[in-house]
């Protein structure tokens, strides 16, 4: 598997790992080797066994069969603490678990020592001193007195990594580290990872984003059905990797940047999202899919929320179908055919499974109840019909309309949320990070569904992933500091758009950023 370079030390090696949950075989004999100083990308669709493998390696669950060799010694971990002590550190996707709110950056950096191995007495000074040492390990530049709760996801992640490095980890596992990061923040993460790699740490990197993997990974390993089905050395052939991942080829057709001549459906005039930001205009034409990309906190969500009536513009106006449009809340927006799918589907759209109406049918029906059942009496056949239609149209993998959402994978959950808003006539569909935690196969289905429903309505998508934006949109705009910019010229390639995102500020120079590595 390894190349012809001089033999390197194998940091972790997994052979014949098996794990079943009831009748489901999550891992069916997975083999994996990561050398010291190597970054291996672990790819796989939802349910391929990635998270099970990570959980076994990090000690959260134990394997049914198979061996794990760590630096040549056979190990099996009974708890996450044991795995950590043995030198396997894991940085999880959910960054709010990367530290404790209410504690400062310094206290969080030294949390492992505070919670166990350190001395009994701690003073703020000794904590700060130790924290500064730990921060220096990865060149972390954060105010040590800041509360963890005020940190952005990217910064929280770096704290988790610094802690892992400080605990002398030899294997670092990163689970979807960039899912909530903008491209600049991701770039910062990558430079930290490159340093760690140079210092001989083995890194297992799990991600759905091929762009990230191209930038950082030495090797990609594809997991499907609980087994490693393919391995790709650098330069990684991603179309082959994706094909191996979903078991079929995927034509991620980029849509041409032709300017639509359809009538303008909605427009934003001289809008300032926050006082003092640069005003901008935006026209959305009938049948158009427009993506807005940009860093976290640049104002993408704010624009969508303002259009939906959840927030107010500092200045400027909206029109919808030529008439002034100012919504005072979701109810009025929905009545007028302006729909929004907010980010984080469990927080914004879905109900816990014990609640009536948490089924696929109920989830789709929720916003449409007043129109579907004007007399108040529920008729389940009406809901089921809409749900069955959605299941077949979007290819939702479920037993039927009565399945609750927690039984579905992330991609299928997102399909249900999209189906909810496609179940009624729509003028303007606002999607905030619609591909969060969605695997490549389901993403293709979602994109097809978004693009096929475009008769007479406009779609505005906010995403921090430029690759997603390219795949789904007719037109891509970049948001920076609460203002919109057109992406430069025609986007012939992914790199060009990423480049234009990066170079907005230096546009005067007219030079496209070259992407290193």
């Amino acid at each position, binding site marked *: 598997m390894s190349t012809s370079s001089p033999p390197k030390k194998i940091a972790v090696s997994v052979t014949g790992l098996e794990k079943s949950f*009831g*009748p*489901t075989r999550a891992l069916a004999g997975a083999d994996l080797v990561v050398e010291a100083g190597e970054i291996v990308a672990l790819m796989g669709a939802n*349910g391929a066994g990635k998270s099970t493998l990570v959980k076994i390696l990090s000690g959260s669950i134990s394997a049914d069969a198979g061996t794990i060799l760590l630096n040549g010694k056979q190990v099996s971990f009974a708890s996450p603490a044991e795995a950590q002590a043995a030198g396997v550190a894991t940085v999880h996707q959910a960054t709010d678990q990367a530290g404790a709110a209410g504690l400062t950056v310094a206290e969080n950096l030294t949390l492992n020592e505070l919670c166990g191995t350190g001395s009994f007495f701690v003073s703020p000074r000794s904590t700060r001193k130790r924290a500064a040492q730990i921060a220096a390990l990865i060149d972390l530049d954060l105010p040590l007195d800041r509360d963890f709760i005020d940190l952005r996801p990217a910064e929280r992640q770096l704290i988790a990594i610094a802690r892992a490095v400080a605990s002398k980890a030899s294997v670092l596992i990163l689970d979807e580290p960039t899912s909530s990061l903008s491209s600049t923040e991701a770039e910062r993460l990558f430079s930290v990872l490159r340093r760690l790699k140079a210092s001989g740490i083995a890194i297992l990197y799990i991600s759905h984003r091929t762009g990230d993997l191209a930038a950082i990974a030495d090797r990609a390993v594809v997991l499907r059905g609980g087994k490693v089905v393919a391995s790709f050395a650098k330069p990684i052939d991603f179309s082959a990797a994706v094909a191996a991942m979903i078991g079929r080829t995927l034509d991620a057709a980029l849509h041409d940047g032709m300017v639509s001549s359809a009538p303008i459906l909605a427009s934003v005039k001289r809008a300032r999202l926050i006082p003092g930001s640069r005003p901008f205009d935006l026209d959305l034409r009938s049948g158009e899919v427009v993506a807005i990309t940009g860093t976290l906190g640049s104002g993408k969500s704010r624009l969508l929320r303002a259009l939906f009536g959840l927030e107010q513009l500092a200045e400027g106006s909206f029109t919808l179908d030529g008439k002034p449009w100012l919504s005072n809340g*979701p*109810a009025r*927006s*929905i*009545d007028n055919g302006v729909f*929004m799918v*907010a980010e984080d589907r469990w*927080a*914004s*759209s*879905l*109900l*816990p499974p*014990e*609640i*009536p*109406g*948490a089924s696929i049918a*109920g989830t789709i029906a*929720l*916003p449409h*109840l*007043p129109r579907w*059942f004007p007399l*108040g*009496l*529920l008729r389940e056949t009406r809901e089921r019909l809409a749900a069955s239609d959605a299941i077949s149209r979007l290819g939702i*993998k*479920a*037993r039927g309309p009565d399945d609750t959402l*927690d*039984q*579905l*994978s992330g991609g299928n959950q997102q399909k249900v949320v999209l189906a*909810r808003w496609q179940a009624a006539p729509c003028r303007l569909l606002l999607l905030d990070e619609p591909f969060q935690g969605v695997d490549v196969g389901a993403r293709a289905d979602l994109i097809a569904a978004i693009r096929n429903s475009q008769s007479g309505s406009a779609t505005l998508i906010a995403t921090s992933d430029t690759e997603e934006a390219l795949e789904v949109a007719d037109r891509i705009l970049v948001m920076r500091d609460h203002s919109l910019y057109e992406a430069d010229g025609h986007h012939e390639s992914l790199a060009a758009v990423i480049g234009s995102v990066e170079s907005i500020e230096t546009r005067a120079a007219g030079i496209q950023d070259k992407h290193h590595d």
Partner: protein
Amino acid sequence: MTDQATASSSKPASTFAETARKYALFVLLGLMLVGFWSAQPAFINSANLFSILQAVSVVAILGVGVSITMSAGGFDLSVGSVAASSVMAASYAMVVLQLNAFETLGLVLLMGAFIGLVNGLLIVRVGVPDLLATLSTMFLLAGLQLIPTGGRSITAGMMLPNGTTAAGAYDPAFLILGRGRLFDTVPYPVIVMGIVALLAWFLMERTRWGRVFYAIGGNETAAHLAGAPTKAYRLWAYVLSGTLASLGGLIVASRVGRGDVSAGNSLLLDAVAASLIGFAVLDKRRPHVLGTVLGAIFVGVLLNGLTMLNAPYYTQDFVKGVVLVGALALTFGLGKKKR
């Protein structure tokens, strides 16, 4: 594809356990009935069974109100005080103000709705957390009901704080509500309980309004983003709960026939317990009307049977506590592995 395979193959294994959990409370109720019957044959005659239902009717009606607020993500701690205040208000209306039965009914129900509205406004407009808002109205009412009579119970011919004697008396028509029986067998409180339960069940389980109440309780943000007027719904939940609590108070007043200051002392805890026991009924793991009524009946049957077997009255609260702990363990603890 794997989802389907998992689901179908795991189904037979879990079916028995699932069914057992679903009907556990029904089976226990049946066993209890049979057990008490064999120990004390008088237990099963219809007069006794209806007296059980009559005894639980007030708790069940209050419990329905509590479970409606719980389903909308709230909690109404004031129901006991609202019922007690309603007893006093009904007595005051008839004995002091000399109103007739229908005027009294209307006035007291309006008062309950108004208290519910105050609760709701405190929560929705002022932003006080549900438990704290209803806790404070609970105290407020417990004190307020004593003020008009100077802390004394209200009976016909009582001495008023200003030295005069109260001129009115309980309207005989009013007493029918608590003491009368349909066809000389079914007590009216049981019929009221049945109607309340049926209407509330229909509202919560069969209409879109019920669906939205539950959606708000499950995920208020999601309900709001789906266009539901969440604040109005939460307000209505408290108005319904207050109205039902005052209806419960009216039944107590018409049964007792006087305005007793200590009426409704244990009503709050009993009503909350009935709603919580209801979580286990049909393994719903959420507040629901049918479960609440069944929870109230379950406790009523148990207490009645134990009393017939000469269990001392002071063990009653202990028995209720055991049932509640058992039901909650059944709901949340056992069989959690299945997920």
